[in-house]
């Protein structure tokens, strides 16, 4: 009987040997730490955990660039990370902190001048963006500001670290109920006032509480503008937000500073350094002292906006 099946036995032995060999190979080739915690290589957890972070975070920037950081923190871009515009800081930090240099000066350089397109990543007007988020259509914006060169970058007027030259720190601005413009819901200005429309949702517009000021404002040169262009409102939830007063002279210069890419005829423009030099003798201050005085323009030019006397008289809120 055995002689008939010896060839079978040999086959069985070969197969068994392969099987045992396979098992042995599996034991040997199984990676270290595999299966210790779950069906995976435990070492992988620590390998991935130990990768070096690339973005450093604003605290790292603040360690050396405290002044810019303080300025940036005060203004409306406080929520924007330094590295969002300047790129990751890992090479820069390494170059400036390590004892033996592994990163060259060139590699450590971080881009400083943001392009027009870069600003528009956030600020381009899009239907999908919340209406209370500051956004522009570049063509319309330039037209409004009488800017003639449409390749003008935003940073020619707006400082990225201090975009709106706020007087007070952002989170120290006053709480204010949410205000709406007609255009938030309507196409263009409707004929009737919202209070005359039955069933109109309850909203606050500036006129509702500040009638005297608004009516006065409409008699002066800046009447074509929105209150919120200077009194920036930042909604924090559906009901309330903060209102920024903005008497900062640098804000006025956004429109009124003479620039080569602006049409000088449409808007009265000055060259601020020349203007300050002119004013200095009358005010008995140096031009530097005047420019550091934050309210600068408003101290003389308030009446172009609305009657400063009303505020001095305490007439701010006159609720209807």
């Amino acid at each position, binding site marked *: 009987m055995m002689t*008939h*099946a010896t*060839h*079978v036995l*040999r*086959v069985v032995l070969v*197969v068994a040997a392969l099987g045992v060999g*396979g098992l042995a190979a*599996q034991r040997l080739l199984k990676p270290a730490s595999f299966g210790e915690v779950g*069906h995976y290589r435990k070492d992988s957890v620590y390998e991935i955990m130990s990768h070096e972070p690339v973005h450093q975070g604003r605290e790292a920037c603040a360690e050396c660039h405290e002044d810019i950081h303080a300025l940036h923190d005060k203004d409306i871009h406080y929520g924007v990370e330094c590295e969002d515009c300047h790129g990751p800081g890992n090479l820069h930090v390494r170059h400036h902190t390590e004892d033996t240099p592994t990163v060259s000066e060139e590699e450590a350089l971080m881009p400083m001048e943001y392009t027009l397109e870069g600003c528009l990543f956030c600020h381009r007007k899009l239907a999908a963006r919340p209406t209370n988020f500051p956004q522009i259509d570049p063509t319309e914006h330039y037209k409004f500001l009488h800017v003639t060169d449409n390749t003008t970058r935003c940073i020619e007027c707006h400082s990225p670290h201090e975009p709106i030259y706020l007087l007070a720190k952002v989170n120290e601005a006053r709480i204010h109920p949410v205000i709406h413009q007609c255009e938030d819901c309507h196409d263009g200005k409707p004929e009737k006032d919202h209070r005359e429309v039955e069933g109109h949702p309850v909203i606050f517009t500036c006129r509702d509480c500040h009638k005297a000021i608004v009516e006065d404002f409409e008699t002066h040169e800046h009447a074509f503008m929105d209150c919120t262009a200077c009194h920036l409102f930042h909604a924090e939830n559906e009901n309330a937000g903060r209102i920024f007063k903005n008497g900062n002279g640098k804000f006025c210069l956004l429109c009124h500073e003479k620039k080569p890419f602006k049409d000088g005829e449409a808007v009265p423009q000055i060259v601020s350094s020349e203007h300050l030099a002119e004013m200095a003798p009358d005010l008995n201050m140096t031009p530097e002292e005047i420019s550091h005085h934050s309210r600068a323009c408003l101290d003389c030019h308030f009446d172009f906006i609305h009657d400063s006397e009303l505020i001095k008289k305490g007439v701010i809120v006159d609720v209807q």
Partner: protein
Amino acid sequence: MEGFVFPNETHVTWSVMIVMYPYITGLVAGAFIVSSLYHVFGFEQLRQIGRFSLVSAFFFLLFAPVPLLNHLGRPERAFNIMITPNFRSAMSGFGFVYAIYTGIVFLEIWFHYRADFIDRWNRAKGLPRKLYYLLLLGGTTRTPETDRVDHAIVKTLAGVGIPIALVLHGYVGFLFGSIKANPWWSTPLMFIIFICSALVSGVSVLIFLFQFVTWLRRIPVDQAALDTLARFLWGFMIVAVSLELMEILSVAYEQTARWAVLKDLINGRLWFTYVILQILICSLVPFLLLAVRNLFRLPTRVGNFLIFISAGLLLLQVLLMRWNVVIGGQLLSKSYRGFTSYLPGIWDKEGLFVAALILIIPFLLLREFDRLFPFFTTPTREITQM
């Protein structure tokens, strides 16, 4: 690109290689089942086909992992699937099932051809003689008793191999069918649909080759075998196509959320390859041809010609089915809002030329095997019935 696809979906991850793989394992499963019909279920008329289908299955099997290895991002780590298999994954079975099944087919061939190997060993000299000796593991005795043992083993292996062959191909179906994220793939029926269409492709390829070779060599066709195969082909294809159609008709009827995107897929990207080619030309036509052939009395040559055409069309049908499933499923976006596109390059690493090579080479190897151990001449070594 059409509509909206997720940003990562612009790339089609599973290429034409992953179309070839289930196609080839389908040919394997089908060919093996035919072989087992003879060895296990006693279909005597399939005797001549029996060996041929077994060896075909083996060569297709050898080439089955090639498209997979070509596709893997890290083919050098391919053995991880056997070193650290995650048995919750349908794909993890591949390593073991494939290894075991290849072993079974190889052994079945070994035991089946032992007589021929011994014969060759006797007549060979020098290196070939040593190789045959090694192949035979030194067992060069042949007696009627050893023949009986070999025969019994072949029968056992053929029987044991049937469920394993079904798993080897079926797990691919299950793999697709269990991907709940993809509305074109996700169905409990996918496992059985793949198996049934595998049987169709396996029988088709055997018929096609059989008829082609007998025509080429001008040897008389084994009509009994062909008749049996044609009947099985017709039967398998009815089951396979019915399942495929029932699956899609049931989704179309229930109109759950996924129907909208599937309808757009069928009417759009897949209109030509699925509706026109797969269903109309390559399913309906062979069904009718085989029906005519099987139900009506026709002259043998006409009947055989209809079988040949049907087999060819069905080979194409199964390939199209794999394409429509694998590629079709990746054309639609999981956002349910759009479609991407896929056109394999000809000379790409995972392109059409490589796909064609992978399909053709097993046939060339089969031809070489035939030179050594002819399939279709009158058997000269009829010492015992095998």
